[in-house]
């Protein structure tokens, strides 16, 4: 599925010592239902982490807690040196530096592709418009769709939309990128163009946390794969080759046999 690239990203367990994200005993409830159970996770600069697991296991909830789209109720989350609490200032500083890409793209349909990209730099970072346009064009070029800049989201394909969403997040020059099943809504023939963009991003050294079931992609770029089960807990965590070839837990084996057989 994934295009062969010359340079494969470095795959050591730890890329640097700089801790960007730490989750300590994080729990999250929806009403009386516990969606996350005592999650512990450290993410270092330059790491590429893949989260997988069955539907309803809390993968989305976990990464949405990292930019406070969901609020955790127990434990501590620290992102880029700021503790995520109810202080809206802290939350907003974190959100500027954490980019997110959604399964359903969530482009702004009333704005052109270019306007989608320059909106946040202009309104959040107060960047002059001309500078924002230059930046956006260079990033649209990076995801290989500069020619679509003046179109509207309704006029481009799913794969193109998701690449715009990546470019839009990159326009804020984030230190961490979160992906929530970025290819799950795409027609099969468009998956690879999005994965290519993500591989390129990984090669550039971006810290990434990605929920996905694209196992080929995971093997290729991840330096850690995390498996969660229906109870909302982390069951297994390992370097990708070991994770796929030699899973330790029975639950992981079951899951992988379902995902990998077809």
């Amino acid at each position: 599925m994934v295009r062969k690239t010359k340079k494969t990203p470095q795959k050591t367990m730890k890329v640097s010592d700089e801790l960007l994200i730490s989750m300590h005993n994080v729990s999250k409830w929806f009403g009386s239902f516990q969606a996350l159970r005592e999650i512990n996770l450290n993410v270092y600069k330059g790491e590429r982490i893949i989260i997988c697991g069955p539907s309803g296991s809390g993968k989305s909830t976990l990464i949405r807690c990292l930019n406070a789209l969901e609020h955790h109720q127990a434990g501590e989350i620290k992102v880029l040196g700021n503790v995520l609490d109810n202080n809206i200032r802290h939350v907003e500083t974190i959100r500027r530096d954490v980019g997110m890409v959604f399964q359903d793209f969530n482009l702004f349909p009333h704005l052109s592709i270019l306007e989608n990209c320059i909106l946040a730099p202009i309104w959040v970072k107060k960047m002059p418009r001309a500078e924002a346009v230059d930046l956006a064009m260079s990033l649209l070029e990076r995801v290989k769709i500069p020619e679509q800049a003046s179109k509207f989201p309704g006029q481009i394909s799913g794969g193109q939309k998701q690449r715009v969403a990546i470019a839009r997040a990159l326009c804020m020059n984030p230190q961490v990128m979160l992906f929530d099943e970025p290819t799950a809504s795409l027609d099969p023939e468009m998956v690879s163009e999005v994965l290519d963009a993500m591989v390129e991003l990984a090669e550039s050294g971006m810290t990434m946390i990605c929920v996905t079931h694209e196992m080929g992609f995971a093997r290729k770029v991840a330096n850690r794969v995390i498996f969660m089960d229906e109870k909302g807990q982390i069951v297994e965590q390992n370097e990708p080759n070991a994770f796929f070839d030699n899973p330790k837990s029975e639950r992981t084996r079951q899951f992988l046999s379902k995902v990998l057989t077809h």
Partner: protein
Amino acid sequence: MAKKSDIVFVREKDAPLLAPPLLESGAFGWFRQNILSTMNDFSSVGGAVRSLIMAAATLFIFYYSVNILWALIDFTLIEAVWSNPQGLKRELCTTALAGGVQHDGWHGACWPLIFAKIKFLTYGAYPFEELWRVNLAGVILIAGLVALMFERMPYRIHIGLFMLVIYPFLAFALLYGLGDWAGLPFVYTYDWGGILVTLVVALTGIVVSLPLGIALALGRQSKMPVIRGFCTIFIEFWRGIPLITVLFMASVALPLFLPKGVNIDNLLRALIGVTLFASAYMAEVIRGGLQAIDKGQYEAGTALGLNYWKNMRLIILPQALTYVIPGIVNTFIGLFKDTTLVAIIGLFDLLGAAQAAVNDASWSTPVQAITLYIYVALFYFICCLIMSRYSMRLERKLAKTND
């Protein structure tokens, strides 16, 4: 057993590319496709009955449409009296039998009556020598609105800001006056009337109810219980009572609650009543639009670092308002026509002024009332038509940019 050729197939030649089937053109073709096609099925009893009913209904509707249209044209244009060289009044529009100058059996509109009353119907009792102030305010208004309708207008944003921010004060200064020192003596609102009052009430209502409605709609969705509760109660209160009651309360009951000597202008009371009433409706229309927006839009904005207000202003409201343009314009049109209710609290809006003119004995003829009411209806109809056409244009334009 299926033949082998039914199972295995490999295309070697493209299927032919065909031109679309010919459509009949011309008036007769149109008539056949759109009119006759619904009534030419006689292949069964049911089909024949249906065809005959369709034919009868078509003839019936056609006959009465033509009839009514003809009666209207006959009354307002052909039989109508247009000029009044001798300066007559009552006699001009009465038949010879009743002492007038028209032939027996005459029945038509009496336009000179409108010409004679036009000043009263437009300005009410606004003093003659100060009319230039109303006219100036009106000319600026029309020029501003027309300028805003053109997209490529240079300085469009500046014109818009001027109309929204400066114009209301300018119009107030012109219409109400600033005092003798400024050369604009006060003209109190009990002298205002006619189209002037109608437009003041309607435009204030329209311009204020939109932002107020947006604020109420956002408030009703707020996470803060106090704000949400207040907005909900406010909306339900104003939606729950008839406008006529609001106006009565404003003119009769309100003074009871005010300290002695404090007197709120009658027009101002009506303005407040109409505006709050319209805001409640507007809020519900806009809330419908807000609910149509996917939660992902707000989350995407949030994830990019936009705060609540920027998210609303840049992402949610532009989309929500676009969805509900028909509802917004519908509310505007309703509000515009509802302004006629201020006549019952003694304000002489266009309908009130027309009512007064109907009672003018010196013009008392059988066609006096109907002529005046046709004029009033025409005014409202044209204003509402402009609003509805403009909203359709706006919708088409926004639909074009969106996908």
